[in-house]
């Protein structure tokens, strides 16, 4: 079997069951690829090859004996380095936590281990999932496999770069203002921010308690649903965890979109934050493809992106300040400049600012809920521009906030970003789909229909 690194998790799992591939063969192939490409991409902060090979050998033995735990058994995965793996450092890509060894697995890590997944190691992030891309941290920033001179999006940057480059088929990221969907958009993969409360956050370093989500990042929609199946579920130790029975997120992937109504939020990228013309053209093409597939596509209007973004920032900065204040007071120089600048505003926000934002938040939630009474899924932009160059700090600062992801951290609705084209400069363009609470399955269903109707998921970055 050639090109093992491009196998999806579902393909690998089927090959394991058919005995045409073993977890040890796949893990070995991926470790060789990581050795070759990671020095250029910096996806990993910490590769744990020894533990990965131990897990692969154990999976191989179990599968050979017919003890197959499920579709992730023996499949390699990488974890953003704010997610705890017992015995490994959780650094958050920061000098502040450079010696922080996790005492226990995060709930999502424990679920992956229980499912027999092979954990390869810890992946690059923006510092504390907010400060990046940065060159003044203990580890270099990840780079975009489509062009290593460009950033791969963030903050789950190593997750995006590694999945895109074929270093692993699955990764976990986290998303507080768009940090799963940004790297998915910049790297041309599939990233889902599940419904708030669907996936436990216990053992994941917090950035903002009421905005944080853990989400799957993959090259295919089917793999995304499969990974979500593994990590979703109520956790009584996470106060934000929902007591939902939502499961089997891939059950409708093959149903198409013929009976679905899709609301296109054009004003986000046409008026509120005018997008790069190639992004606008790509989104129009997405709407055309979905209509051709049988969906009814109609325009929908929500409150402005500016307001969603302001509320996201007030809540995020206020909650993050309550976490970081002791370090910002005692060790401000141990943060990189970007993280310091993005965390300090919380010191200047009042209790009234915070509660006012949370009150307006409920009204914005009602506005999105109203829209989702008339349509099944929303379609809108993810990023307004292709990825900027890593060495162009000014352009990165200009383009980074030009996104339509933060609204759905504010509201908690499930939101998925995936590839929707390539720019003239060879960088991925993207779309975003948003669904009703705990109806992540329908978001994935629409994404799967788009994936089947187009070839973007088959494109490989030049570094491959």
């Amino acid at each position, binding site marked *: 079997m050639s090109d093992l690194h491009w196998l999806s998790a579902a393909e690998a799992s089927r090959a394991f069951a058919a005995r045409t591939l073993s977890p040890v063969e796949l893990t070995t192939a991926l470790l060789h690829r990581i050795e070759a490409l990671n020095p250029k991409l910096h996806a990993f902060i910490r590769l744990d090859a020894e533990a990965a090979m131990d897990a692969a050998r154990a999976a191989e033995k179990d599968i050979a004996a017919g003890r197959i735990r499920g579709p992730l058994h023996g499949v390699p995965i990488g974890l953003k380095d704010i997610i705890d793996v017992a015995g490994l450092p959780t650094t958050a890509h920061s000098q502040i936590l450079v010696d922080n060894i996790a005492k226990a697995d995060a709930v999502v890590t424990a679920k992956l281990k229980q499912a027999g997944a092979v954990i390869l190691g810890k992946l690059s992030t923006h510092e504390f999932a907010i400060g990046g891309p940065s060159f003044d941290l203990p580890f270099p920033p990840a780079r975009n496999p489509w062009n290593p001179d460009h950033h791969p999006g963030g903050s789950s940057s190593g997750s995006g770069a590694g999945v895109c480059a074929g270093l692993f088929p699955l990764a976990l990221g986290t998303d507080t203002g768009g940090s799963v969907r940004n790297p998915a958009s910049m790297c041309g993969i599939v990233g889902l921010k599940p419904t708030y409360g669907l996936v436990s956050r216990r053992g994941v370093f917090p950035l903002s308690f009421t905005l944080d989500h853990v989400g799957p990042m993959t090259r295919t929609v089917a793999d995304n649903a499969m990974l979500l199946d593994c990590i979703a579920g109520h956790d009584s130790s996470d106060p934000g965890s929902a007591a939902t029975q939502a499961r089997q997120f891939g059950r409708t992937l093959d149903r198409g979109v013929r009976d679905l109504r899709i609301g296109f939020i054009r004003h986000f990228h046409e008026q509120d934050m005018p997008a790069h013309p190639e992004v606008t053209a790509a989104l129009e093409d997405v709407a055309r493809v979905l209509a051709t597939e049988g969906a009814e596509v109609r325009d929908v209007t929500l409150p402005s992106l500016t307001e969603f973004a302001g509320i996201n920032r007030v809540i995020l900065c206020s909650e993050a300040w309550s976490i970081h204040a002791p370090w910002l007071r005692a060790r401000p120089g141990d943060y990189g400049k970007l993280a310091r600048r993005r965390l300090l505003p919380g010191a200047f926000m*009042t209790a009234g600012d915070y509660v006012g934002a949370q*009150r307006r938040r409920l009204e914005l*939630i009602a506005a999105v809920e109203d829209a989702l009474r008339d349509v099944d899924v929303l379609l809108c932009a993810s990023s307004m521009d292709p990825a900027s160059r890593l060495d162009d700090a000014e352009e990165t600062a200009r383009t980074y906030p030009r996104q339509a992801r933060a609204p759905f951290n504010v509201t908690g609705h499930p939101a998925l970003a995936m590839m929707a084209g390539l720019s003239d400069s060879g960088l991925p363009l993207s779309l975003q789909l948003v669904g009703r609470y705990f109806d992540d399955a329908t978001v994935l269903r629409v994404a799967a229909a788009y994936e089947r109707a187009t070839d973007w998921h088959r494109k490989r970055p030049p570094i491959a």
Partner: protein
Amino acid sequence: MDPIVEALARAAGLEKALADHPDDVAAAAAQALNNAGAVKVPTNPAAEPWPPMRAGVGL
């Protein structure tokens, strides 16, 4: 630096940041003002915040 910003920073315990990274402190204060100003706080006094207030078994 604006004396009000400096006073607020000291009240927040940011003496070290003020001394070593005054530009970051000033930029953060400006950003906070900008972000908070973008929020249209509900005029209805009864408008509740999210997450919803829910009394649990411990109350």
